[in-house]
């Protein structure tokens, strides 16, 4: 083989196959959602706090108010659009933090000796034994009500499940023959982790984290609902749901809009996670559902 040929030799897989249509659609929806975050103030027909007490609790499809108005006569559509920023923030930031910290913890625990593994995992189990929302409420209440503290609380809550998923994957991987070979080759634990473990846990990790975004949005909405996250009159989906509670029997539509928004965004990230599971698997590339 000539040296020129060697130089152009690539050891990475050559082609990255195009993603399936369903994945592209889901990604487009996520982009749309992000667009709403950045262009919210441009798109929204009214301000988040522009109340019109004369037109309170209008239903869906009212003139000038597509999704109606809430108890203080504020346009629900505008508040939904403007609330996207905070709701997505509280959905994504905790998952990013927990994804990073949790996978580092899980990786260390999975590759450590049995004693260290037990210490780490049993400590996590203590946190894991609380229902996630209860723990979030506890942490958020201890830190005081604010968006920042809600994000911190949610990050802490999400670390144990991420760490457990990663640890389980790593432990399952340890019995594979290629791990033994890597050890026999004299590679350091760090190099083995980077080269052999991470590529194998990346896909399940990304998938799991995407599904956590939905959970995090719902939990963040729950914290706001309880008054531990965003505080009125901020536009945030959970908070909107909280407000709507007072008028639920007179005007259920007021609660329906933010509830549906939370549900659909959570579903979107769940579906995206499921698609990514397939797309990131080298063995299933090109498979369409």
């Amino acid at each position, binding site marked *: *083989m000539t*040296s020129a040929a*060697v*130089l152009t*030799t*690539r*050891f*990475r*897989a*050559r082609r990255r196959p195009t993603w399936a249509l369903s994945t592209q659609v889901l990604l487009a929806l996520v982009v749309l959602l992000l667009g709403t975050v950045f262009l919210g103030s441009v798109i929204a027909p009214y301000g988040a706090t522009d109340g019109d007490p004369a037109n309170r609790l209008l239903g869906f499809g009212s003139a000038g108010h597509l999704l109606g108005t809430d108890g203080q006569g504020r346009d629900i559509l505008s508040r939904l659009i403007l609330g996207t920023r905070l709701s997505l923030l509280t959905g994504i930031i905790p998952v990013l933090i927990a994804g990073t910290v949790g996978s580092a913890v899980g990786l260390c625990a999975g590759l450590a000796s049995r004693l260290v593994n037990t210490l780490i995992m049993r400590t996590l189990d203590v946190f894991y034994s609380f229902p996630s929302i209860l723990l979030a409420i506890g942490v958020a209440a201890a830190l005081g009500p604010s968006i920042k503290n809600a994000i911190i609380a949610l990050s802490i809550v999400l670390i144990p499940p991420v760490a457990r998923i990663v640890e389980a994957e790593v432990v399952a991987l340890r019995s*594979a*023959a*290629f791990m*033994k*070979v*890597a*050890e*026999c*080759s*004299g*590679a350091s634990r760090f*190099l083995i982790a980077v*080269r*052999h473990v991470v*590529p*194998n846990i*990346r896909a399940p990790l990304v998938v799991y984290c995407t599904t956590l975004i939905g959970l995090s949005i719902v939990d963040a909405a729950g914290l706001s609902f309880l008054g531990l996250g965003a505080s009125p009159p901020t536009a945030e989906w959970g908070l909107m749901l909280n407000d709507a509670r007072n008028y639920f029997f007179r005007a259920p539509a007021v609660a329906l809009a933010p509830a549906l928004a939370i549900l659909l965004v959570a579903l979107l990230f769940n579906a995206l996670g499921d698609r990514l599971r397939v797309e990131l698997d*080298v*063995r299933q590339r090109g498979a369409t559902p």
Partner: protein
Amino acid sequence: MAAPEFLLEGRGLTVTYGNGVRAVSDVDLTVRHGEIVGLVGESGCGKSSLANTVLRMVKPQSGTLSFNGKDLLAMHGDELKAVRRSLQVVPQDPSTSLNPRLTIAQSVEFNLKVHGWGRRERRARVMEMLDRVGIPASYSTRYPHQLSGGQLQRVAIARALVTDPSLVVCDEAVSALDKSVQAQILNLLAQLQRDLDVAFLFVSHDLTVVEHVSDRVLVMYLGRIVEEGPATEILTAPRHPYTQALLASIPTRGQQRAAIHGEPPSPVNPPSGCGFRTRCPYAVDACAGYDNTPHAVGPDHAARCVRLDDLALTAPQAWRNS
């Protein structure tokens, strides 16, 4: 310093696991430079434990092990890493022996990366090795699931040989392959051994596989080497009843296969004396008191049996008729 006679020299190796299983008892194991040594025995006899001991994956309870004249068991850190470069492994199952997320070239390359090779040298070397084991260059960016079992094992061999080792441990390297592919891989190993002057410790439960490639064969039963000698002698004139039984159990055309009766005893509580006496048709009372000292029966040929002298001429035929 003169090169030591043996590339690998283990003396009195004993491996005991936490659950009381004595997997390897008092085993002497030697491999010369460029030699192919076969290690046979049925599953559970301790051959994998012995292989893992050689690879420094399992710490023996007692015994000494030297590689190229240096004490392998005392090594750690950089010294051990340097030795690992010349001590490689080809594992059994081709389906898990390569990382499913890495292309095969990346898998082979990793071994060089560990030992600090530069990018250009790595690439040239990987392509050279893949070529040597008969994997087309165009396959280098494929993933393991796109290759057949035989091809995967070729890649695993390329990975083991890429660092230019002096000893490769093949732990049941062809057991998962079908017969025709087995033969191809065995021929490849023999070819590579001639070309690269590398020694192999070839572990298998299949005597026919071992006979095909080995210079010398060790037969293991219940943690002990019951017979060792040149491959041709072991095959044509086995002296230990267990070796004879193994040979007789190879299916041949037109002849009834002779199976050994019963199960091997538990390695947690092995029988006193000779481990094989519970299944051996020639067993006598003296077997229970046997101290397992090997008896030389020829140059480089030794067996551990009390009745070697009076059983001298009972050929494998005895097994066929039983």
